Each structure stands twice: as C-alpha cells, then as structure tokens.
C-alpha cells in the first residue's frame, strides 16, 4: 500500500471559509418565496386536562393565515413513534399525539399552532389563543413516580413504568458478593446523575414546503440524520417516503438533541401542506429548553464486591431512568443498551447484575445527549473504583491498573457480553500519570492544605463503545433501523470527484477528513474533491451522525467506495497501457506498468476515457463511480486516561480546576487538529456536568432552569488550558483502523472531576458528593450540613 500523504495530517478545515465569512446557510436563514411563520402554543402546566381552546380572537388577528389544534390534527397525522423497542422489558409505548388533544403531560407539550405572515405576528396571535386547563397533580421524580398513589401519566402504564430491563447473572453475582462479605469488601453508593440540557447553540428549526402539483414535501431541517427524519416524516405525515425530501443545511451543533423526530417537525409539515405555502418554525431558547430533549437523569444504587487486595469481583445495581412524559425516538435504548452494557468499563469484572427502570414523569422527554448512556456508566464505574481504592487505602491508579483487561486478552468478552475489539490500557495510564507528574502531586498533597485550599487529584480510565454499529446487533437489541453507512465516490469527466456520505456531519469536520481519505485512495489533490451530505435527494440511504459513528462507519464505507473506483480505473488504465491488469500499479494518482513509471496514465486521463467510452475494455461499463454500504462487524472501543487536578477552598466551597490531562486512544488519527477539537469540546461538556450544569424542576413540574440565564452553560474562563495526548491502538476490524472520538471527552471527564474533588475533601471524611459540585454543595458538605455524605 502506498504511503498515505494526507491521512494523519494536520489540515485546516475546508468547511471554515463559508462559516467564518457569514456565507453558510442554516435553516433559519432560508426565506423561500411566500414564506409563513409558525408559533407553537405550549402547555404552561406539567399535567392538565384541556377543557377548552378558543382560537377565535387569534384567527381574527390581521396577518394570521391558519390555526390548528390537536383536534384538527387528529386522524390527519399519526402519533410520534419511538424507534428503539428494547426487547425483554415489557416496554410500553403510549401514544404521543403531535399536538395534545385532551391532556398535556409536561410544560412545553404542544396544544395548538398559529401560522402567520411573519414571526412577530405569529407570536402576537399565539398570545390570543385562550386555552382553559384543569391542572392535575404532577410528578417529576422518577422514584416518586413509581410509588403507589403517584399521578398516572398514561393510561395502561401502571406505576408509570415504561420498562424494566436487566442484564447479568444473578446467581454468580450473589455468590461473588457472599464471598466478598466473608473474605473481602463490599462498597456501595447511591448516585444521582443529574438531568442536563444539550444546548446546541443553534436551536431547532424547520422550513417545510409542499408542492400539491407533484405531491412532494421538502423540509429543510436541523437534523443529525436526514434519512431517519425522512422515514419518520413519511410515517407520521402520510406523505410517501419517495415524495419526502429532507435537507439538513448547515446544522449548528446537535449533541444528540437533533437525532429525534419531534412532533414540531410533523406539525410544521402538516401546516405547509394544509395552507399550500412554505412554513418556517424556529424555536426560541426557552422553548428549546422545554421542548427539545434533555439528557441523563439517572438515580442509581450501586455496589461492588472486591478482594482485600483490590480485585473487583462483581458489580450489582439498580438504576431509575427518568424518560420524561413521552418516549423520544431513541429513549428506551439510552439507559439500557448504551448504558448497561458498558458498566464494567475497562476492568475484568467477571460478574454483573443490573436492573434499569424506565419511568415516565411530567417532564421534558429525555433522550441521547453526547455520550448517551455511556457517560452515566463511566461515571458509576469510575467513581466506585475510587471508593474501593479509598476503602482499601490503595492508590486509585494502582487499583485501576490491577483490574485492567490485560493487553493480551483482546478481543475480550465482558460480563455484559460485548467483545471489546482492541485495547492497551496501561500505556495511556502511564502517559497521563507522567504528564501530570502524579508522584509529585501525591507528595504535595501529603503536606496538607495550603491557605485553606485542598489539593485533589482525580483519575478516569474509561472505555467507550463507538462506531454504532453492526446492524444485526442493532436489530437484536430492538433498534428499529440498521446502523450501516453508505458512500458514493463519483469521478467527473475533468478528473474532479464528489464523495457522498450517508452520515450527516454538523461541525465534526468530516468534509475535511473524508476528503483526506478520498485524496489518499485516488491520488487526487484534496481541492479536487467535494464532500456532499445531508440531502436525501442527493445521497444514498444512510443513518446519520451520532454515536461516534461518522468516521468509523461512514469513513469505512467511503474508503471502500474509493477503492472500487480505483479498481475500475485500473482495468481501464491497463487497457489504455495495453498491459495486463495484474501488471499495472497505482501510485499517487498515476497508473503504470510495473517497472515503467515514465509511461503513466493519470487518474484524470483514465477518468476522461471512462466517460468518453470510445474504447473501453470488454465488459466495462462507461463512467467512473462506485458506491459502498459498510456494515461493521463489531463496535469500536476507544479508551484512555484523564486526570484532573483541583484545589478546593474549604472556606468557600469553591472548586478551582487547576489542570486537566487527557490521554485518549481513538485508534488511528486522520486529522490531529480535528481530534483535539473533538476532545476539547467533549471535555467542557463533561466537566460542566461535574461542576456547573443541572436542569431543575419544581415539584409541580415547572422547569426552573428554563432560560440560558438560569442554566449554567459554561464559559471560556471556567476552564484551564487542557493538555492532550494520545496512544494509538488501531481497531483491528475497521478498514481505517479508526475508533471514533466524538464523545470521549464527555464520557471520561465527569468522574475525573468528581474523583478529584472528593479526593481533595478526604480530610473532612467526605466520600461522595452528587453533582454539580457547586460551592454551595461543597460548602454544605464541608460544614457538616449534608451528613449523609460523611463517612460513618
């Protein structure tokens, strides 16, 4: 294989010129002729019966084009489905009408929509719609929702229990705990993984247009997965799939929140069809906080059994996952498949028993937020391993090292049944310890607090599951779709190329990394390659961008398609060179007979002949393009070690994050600049969960953090300069050797921070604190106000 020129190169992004000059087009930038604007009227109550809706005043308002209520939509558009039907869980899927008909189930549930000539008028008119509610007692806490006598949110879902899902071997686990009670230790802890709000800086937006002449529905749409959106748009609106075109223009961040198919998109499409004019709907931020999915929100009781020398032998636990009022698109799979299967982390823990209760509450639906289930799992295992170390008075680095899956055991089948593809956890740990100068820090710590400031060091040695994923596995775990990816590489007569991907990047930089891949495979100048994504009328069926799958699965499809182009070009080149195909070599864009590099045909010359087709070899069709559909044989399992160094002020409770070291192993690296960017962005989201962020509801279901002024989206000055480095353990089954890096930072960093803060507070007898670790929470713990977190 020729040495790659661009794979591994720090190339600046080709996406950027349009983005830094204001020439990019996001959904809300579009203004098709005849555009109208929609405003959705939403419930101010967490749970209520709708007694009456009076739209007459609004209808008379000048500039109003149409108003629809839930009753108007009934029978005309289908309920919003969930797409992850986890098996063996008795999953309940109560109907989710696009607009509520008689009952609203969370603050933000849509009840009516106004369409008007401009956005101001739409909002004015929305204020004139009178909705009479009969408020009902609401429940927002998932454990309270399961109690006897709690408000019942859906008929036919007793106890608000959407599902009960479990894994593991109860008998073997019980035996391991009994043995540990006798000869070892058992460590248990109650954990709260608080609810987060994703906060893509671009809110959701849709522009829908229906052509009654052709029957085509076009929707420009802030989605991470245009084909899934097309499929569900077709299912919900009844417009046949081949008549639906979804276009994801520039998408301003997603982090999982733009995976689901929301009621709002279907409502806007319905309006466009009903009024025969294009309709735009763009959330405002507060609306986004109430109506776009939230993430996390787990309550967990966890315990581990370990030997006295620190080998963890079993893990047992129960999690109560808050799903919100309705099942969002992927919601059932997030706290189960994406969470439960990763609980033993990077350790050889042989026994597990775990149960997850998925619970409806009167809150905004919860679905995949960056990491989706894996941050919650990593938080649990990385916190409890620290608790084992603390109880045994061992160094947390040593307990981890002792329990690591050894390098020679890969592929390694975990107690949960996953086959980790490759790993070498020791070198990443060693590198991180060296970077942070661990020994010196521990010595410094022994000297005690300085000026009331306590030094803490926290580790997180994580592994995550990426590159979603083998379609057969997706089917086996109830995901209602495949998880392969598609690519087309099309050469043009002038020797330029277009690469089409079924993935849908929205900031991750694959227009650049994918061009790097194609340039290497075909020996083309990178500027001669265009990467196209996001438009269902242009690209083959694909499953989109999430789960750190775009480069792993989409990139693999792309390299296979490019190789097919090269194979066909080789046949044509051999014919042009009057040589046997087996004697023709390809090197950096040139075909020649082995030993005669001077008489070469360039890929551009060969491409032209492929299109002219005046003299092609027998059996070779004109043109030069190829497609590939890549279904991975396994997931990929990136890993690494993150270390946080904090100072905690015992007087004020203030946590000062002094340093952060991240050593990640995401397999082979295509573009180190982009990988660093992905890591940094993930870190900030994960660190912010530990220190700053948290969605809060009042007991009656009002979102108290309902605006950006109330929810702590972190700022630049809240972070130190991160130190990043890598080890490189290629995935053995991926054609590019890549593993994915989109979520590592978020998954790894949260427990590193909490471990560091708890480490700093050890002298106070504090063994655990729930997030976010605000000064108030830390101060209360330090000053004995939160007794349950103190050691007995």
């Amino acid at each position, binding site marked *: 294989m020729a040495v790659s020129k661009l794979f591994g190169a720090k190339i600046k992004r080709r996406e950027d010129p349009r*983005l830094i*000059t*204001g*020439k990019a087009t996001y959904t809300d930038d579009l203004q098709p002729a005849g555009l109208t604007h929609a405003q959705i009227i939403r419930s101010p109550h967490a749970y209520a019966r709708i007694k009456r809706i009076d739209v007459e005043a609004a209808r008379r308002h000048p500039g109003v084009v149409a108003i629809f209520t839930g009753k108007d939509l009934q029978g005309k558009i289908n309920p919003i489905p969930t797409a992850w039907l986890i098996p063996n869980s008795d999953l309940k899927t109560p109907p989710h009408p696009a607009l509520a008909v008689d009952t609203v189930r969370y603050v933000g549930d849509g009840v009516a929509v106004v369409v008007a000539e401009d*956005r101001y008028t739409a909002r004015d008119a929305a204020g004139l719609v009178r909705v009479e509610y009969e408020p009902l007692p609401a429940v927002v806490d998932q454990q309270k929702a399961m109690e006897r006598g709690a408000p019942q949110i859906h008929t036919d879902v007793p106890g608000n229990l959407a599902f009960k899902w479990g894994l593991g071997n109860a008998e073997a686990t019980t035996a391991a705990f009994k043995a540990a009670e006798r000869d070892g230790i058992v460590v248990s802890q109650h954990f709260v993984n608080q609810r987060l709000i994703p906060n893509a800086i671009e809110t959701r937006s849709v522009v829908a247009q229906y052509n009654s002449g052709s029957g085509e529905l076009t929707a420009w749409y802030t989605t991470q997965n245009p084909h899934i959106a097309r499929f569900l748009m077709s299912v919900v609106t009844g417009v046949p799939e081949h008549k639906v075109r979804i276009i994801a223009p520039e998408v301003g961040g997603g982090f999982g929140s733009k995976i689901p198919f929301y009621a709002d998109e279907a409502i806007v499409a319905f309006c466009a069809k009903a009024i025969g004019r294009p309709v735009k709907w763009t959330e405002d931020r507060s609306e986004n906080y109430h109506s776009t999915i939230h993430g996390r929100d787990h309550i967990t009781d966890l315990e581990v059994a370990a030997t006295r020398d620190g080998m963890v032998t079993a893990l047992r636990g129960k999690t109560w996952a808050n799903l919100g009022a309705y099942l969002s698109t992927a919601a059932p799979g997030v706290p189960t498949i994406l969470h439960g299967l990763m609980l033993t982390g990077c350790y050889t823990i042989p026994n597990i028993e775990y149960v997850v209760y998925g619970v409806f509450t009167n809150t905004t639906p919860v679905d995949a937020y960056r990491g989706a289930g894996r941050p919650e799992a990593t938080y649990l295992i990385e916190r409890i391993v620290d608790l084992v170390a603390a109880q045994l008075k061992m160094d947390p680095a040593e307990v981890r090292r002792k329990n690591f899956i050894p390098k020679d055991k890969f592929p390694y089948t975990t107690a949960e049944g996953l086959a980790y593809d490759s790993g070498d956890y020791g070198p990443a740990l060693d590198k991180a310890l060296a970077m942070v100068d661990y020994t010196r820090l521990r010595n410094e710590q022994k000297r005690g607090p300085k000026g009331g400031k306590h030094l803490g060091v926290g580790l997180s040695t994580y592994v995550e599951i990426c590159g979603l994923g083998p379609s057969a596995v997706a089917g086996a775990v109830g995901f209602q779709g495949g998880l392969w990816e598609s690519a087309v590489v099309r050469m043009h007569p002038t020797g330029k190329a277009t690469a089409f991907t079924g993935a849908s990047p929205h*900031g991750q930089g694959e227009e650049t990394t994918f061009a790097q891949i194609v340039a290497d495979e075909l020996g083309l100048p990178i500027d001669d390659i265009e990467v196209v994504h996001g438009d269902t009328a242009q690209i083959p069926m694909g499953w989109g961008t999430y789960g750190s799958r775009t480069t792993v699965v989409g990139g693999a499809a792309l390299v296979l398609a490019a190789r097919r182009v090269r194979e066909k070009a080789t046949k044509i080149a051999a014919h042009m060179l009057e040589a046997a195909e087996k004697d023709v070599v390809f090197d950096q864009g040139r075909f020649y007979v082995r030993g005669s590099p001077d008489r070469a045909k360039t890929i551009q010359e060969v491409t032209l002949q492929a299109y002219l087709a005046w003299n092609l070899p027998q059996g070779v069709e004109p043109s030069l393009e190829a497609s590939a559909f890549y279904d991975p044989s396994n997931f990929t399992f990136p890993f690494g070690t993150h270390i946080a160094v904090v100072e905690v002020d015992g007087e004020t409770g203030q946590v000062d994050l002094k340093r952060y070291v991240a050593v990640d192993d995401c397999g082979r690296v295509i573009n180190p600049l982009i990988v660093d960017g992905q890591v940094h962005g993930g870190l900030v989201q994960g660190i912010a969960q530990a220190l700053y962020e948290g969605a809060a509801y009042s007991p009656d279901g009002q979102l108290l953090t309902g605006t950006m002024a109330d929810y702590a989206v972190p700022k630049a000055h809240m972070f130190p300069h991160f130190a990043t480095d890598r080890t490189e353990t290629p995935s053995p089954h991926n054609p590019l050797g890549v593993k994915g890096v989109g979520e590592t930072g978020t998954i790894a960093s949260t427990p590193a921070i909490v471990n560091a803060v708890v480490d700093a507070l050890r002298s106070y007898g504090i063994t655990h604190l729930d997030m976010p670790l605000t000064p108030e929470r830390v101060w209360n713990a330090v000053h004995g106000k939160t007794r349950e977190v103190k050691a007995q």
Partner: protein
Amino acid sequence: MKRPVKVTVNGVAHSHEVEPRLLLVHLLRDVLGLTGTHVGCDTSNCGACTILMNGKAIKSCTLLAVQADGASLMTVEGLAQDGNLHPIQEGFWEEHGLQCGFCTPGMMMTALDLLQRTPDPTEQQIRMGLEGNLCRCTGYQHIVNSIQHAARKMRGAGAKAGRSA
C-alpha cells in the same frame, strides 16, 4: 406605526421603515438578508448575535432596530476586505477555532472588540473577554488559540503600518 431607520452596515447605507419593536438582529437577518449574524438565545447570554455598533461590540438581539438609527454597524460579512480574510478570520481557520460555526460570527466580532482594546491579551484576558459568548462545540481552547493567532498578526501589521507611516 412604522418608523424610519437609517443604518450603515459594513459601509453600505440602508434606509427602511420598520416596526418600533423590530429587533436589530431581525433587521439584519430578515430585512437586509445579512444572515451571518445568528440568534442563539432570548436572554442576551449566548452572544451569537454580537456585532459592532459604532466600533463597539453589542448584542443585536437586545437592541431595537430604531435604537440603532444613525449608527454604523459591522457584521461578520464586513470582516473580510477585498476578498482578503481579516486576521481574526484567519486565526479561527488556522487554529480550528470553530466546529459547527453557529457561535463563530459573534465570537469573532467580540474578539475584534477585545483586540481593539487589548492588542496583546493574556490567555486569561481572552477567556474573560469571551464571557458574553457561548460555544458548545470547541471547549474554547482553540478559540483562545485563534484569538492569540489573530493578535500576533494584527500587532505585526500594526507595527509594519507604524514603520511605513
């Protein structure tokens, strides 16, 4: 009742009759078609709508168009001159200072204001200077690098201009 508003945007004079309640950002985006300036929140927190008004960074979602009457405005579309990127744009490109790009126009306009006031900022001054701008993608580190890159370049250009003057 509509009111007349005259603004100069990126050196071009505009005159429009607008509703008194029209937000400046909507004048830019919906009336003038300058969609490079974005809206990311409704509480003046995110800074995606940041532009320069009479040379100073302001949040165009928090000002009425009529309040800008007579003002000179600069948006992201006005950064590049004669097809040449502004050093701040170069910095963001070179240092991977953006991912989804949605916060970027506001970030760059804030950076311009910052560098006009503080030509040689420390990392901490940059981080504090970005207090009114949120980015959810980059983790800010590459944005800091981008602004440092731009600062070096702008100081170099300034020194050169000083010498030739």
